């Protein structure tokens, strides 16, 4: 038995949750990509969803067994994503089982399949939030990216149904060359819909987002010089109306983690992603077919062992770059794990190419 410790403060090392001496026994949250089926064909989809529907996805029972494991490990939160989770007939069955096991749930959806009844069921089952997308304030802008006529109208209706039943909605807007001109209009539009949070996120160079990267991406220089100042202005203008969030802003990072214990990138450190076939990856951006990034498969291996011992996770949690010594951004911990992989072709192959201190400006 440990002797009684008087101190109730944090451990003595600089605490960075999920890293170094503070590796976690289990993820804080898990993203379950429950299907690759999708009714949209978005140009920027990081998971290539909606094209190949021949994947052998986990069955209802297999997902439930996995939920049992997550419950035993005391995982706090599950994000259900895909693909479009509502394309699976057994989605509500699996979600209800998850809630019964005491795990909090958030749905990541394109919102187009949500009518009043589905919104009511989501609320009744116990989802605490739905995250959707609104990459434009008009059908033209939105559907240029989503590639399905009518999807704008259905997305708006989906948002309204969720709000009507009291389900909070966070809207993500992926910034691309197709919509950066309309940031103010999109914010105003989301606010008028009654959405409480809108997050402007950068394009991820994965899946179709990688294939169409040059066509869609706004450069790092342009983002920093033109877009970021506008987002900062909007955040102030809309204070107490709608929470405007975006990436690469130190003030927002501090606000979201006042205790400064979270690494900026949680991939493989505090969360991970499970593909429809059961593969375990550091996060959703990583490809399903590169074995160096696959930590294991939950149908073949123990998830506890995968999380605690997989070499890919160990590398992510314990790599320190010599260039980072002395940097004031301790929580950066080398940078975004996927961006590093995408840039160097290997896990933790070097410092984040977007590192602010180097002033690099490349496509990632």
């Amino acid at each position, binding site marked *: 038995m*440990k*002797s*009684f*410790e*008087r*101190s*109730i*403060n*944090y*451990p003595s090392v600089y*605490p960075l*949750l999920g890293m170094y*001496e*503070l*590796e*976690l*026994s*289990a993820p*804080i949250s898990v993203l379950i990509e429950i299907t690759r089926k999708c009714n949209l064909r978005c140009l920027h989809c990081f998971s290539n969803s909606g094209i190949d529907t021949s994947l052998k996805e986990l069955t209802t029972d297999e997902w439930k067994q996995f939920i049992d494991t997550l419950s035993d490990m*005391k995982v*706090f*939160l599950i994000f259900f994503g895909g693909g479009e989770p509502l394309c699976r007939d057994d989605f509500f069955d699996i979600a209800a089982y998850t809630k019964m096991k005491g795990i*909090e749930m958030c749905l990541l959806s394109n919102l187009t399949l949500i009518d009043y009844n589905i919104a009511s069921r989501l609320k009744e089952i116990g989802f*605490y939030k739905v995250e959707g997308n609104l990459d434009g304030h008009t059908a033209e802008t939105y559907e240029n990216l989503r590639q399905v006529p009518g999807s704008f109208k259905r997305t708006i209706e989906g948002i309204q149904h969720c709000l009507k039943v009291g389900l909070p909605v966070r809207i993500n807007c992926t910034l691309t060359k197709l919509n950066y001109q309309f940031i103010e209009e999109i914010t105003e539009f989301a606010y008028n819909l009654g959405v409480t949070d809108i997050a402007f996120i950068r394009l991820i160079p994965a899946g179709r987002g990688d294939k169409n990267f040059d066509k869609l991406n706004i450069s790092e220089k342009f983002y920093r010089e033109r877009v970021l100042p506008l987002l900062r202005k909007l955040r102030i203008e809309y204070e107490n109306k709608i929470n405007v969030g975006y990436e690469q802003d130190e003030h927002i990072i501090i606000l979201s983690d006042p*205790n400064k*214990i*979270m690494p900026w990138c949680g991939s493989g450190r505090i969360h991970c992603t499970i593909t429809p076939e059961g593969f375990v990856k550091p996060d959703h951006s990583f490809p399903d077919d590169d074995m160096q990034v696959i930590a294991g498969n939950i149908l073949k291996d123990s998830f506890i062992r995968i999380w605690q011992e997989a070499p890919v996770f160990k590398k992510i949690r314990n790599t320190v770059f010599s260039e980072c010594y002395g940097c004031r951004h301790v929580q950066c911990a080398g940078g975004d794990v996927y961006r590093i992989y995408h840039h160097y072709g290997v896990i933790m192959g070097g410092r984040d190419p977007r590192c602010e201190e180097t002033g690099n400006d490349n496509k990632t």
Partner: protein
Amino acid sequence: MRLQSIPLLKGRLRSERFGGLIFCMEPLRILMINHTGYEILSEVDGVTSIEKIVTRISQKYSLSEKVIRKDISEFFHFLADEGLLVWEYK
């Protein structure tokens, strides 16, 4: 904070090698605690009073109740400030 008050943790507690984690959805908070903090919060069950928790911990570690009471009071006030703990007097 009265000793007869019943503390209630908002959110969930999990044991870790370094002590434990508190995860709370509303307000959204993740907090690391050491082994002592975990030990104390393991006693918080929505039924047991602060007084009983103090007694149990002091007996377990053979330390005076006065010392433990002060530590636990500080700890609980810290958690209350973070929005992670409430207590009620019945």
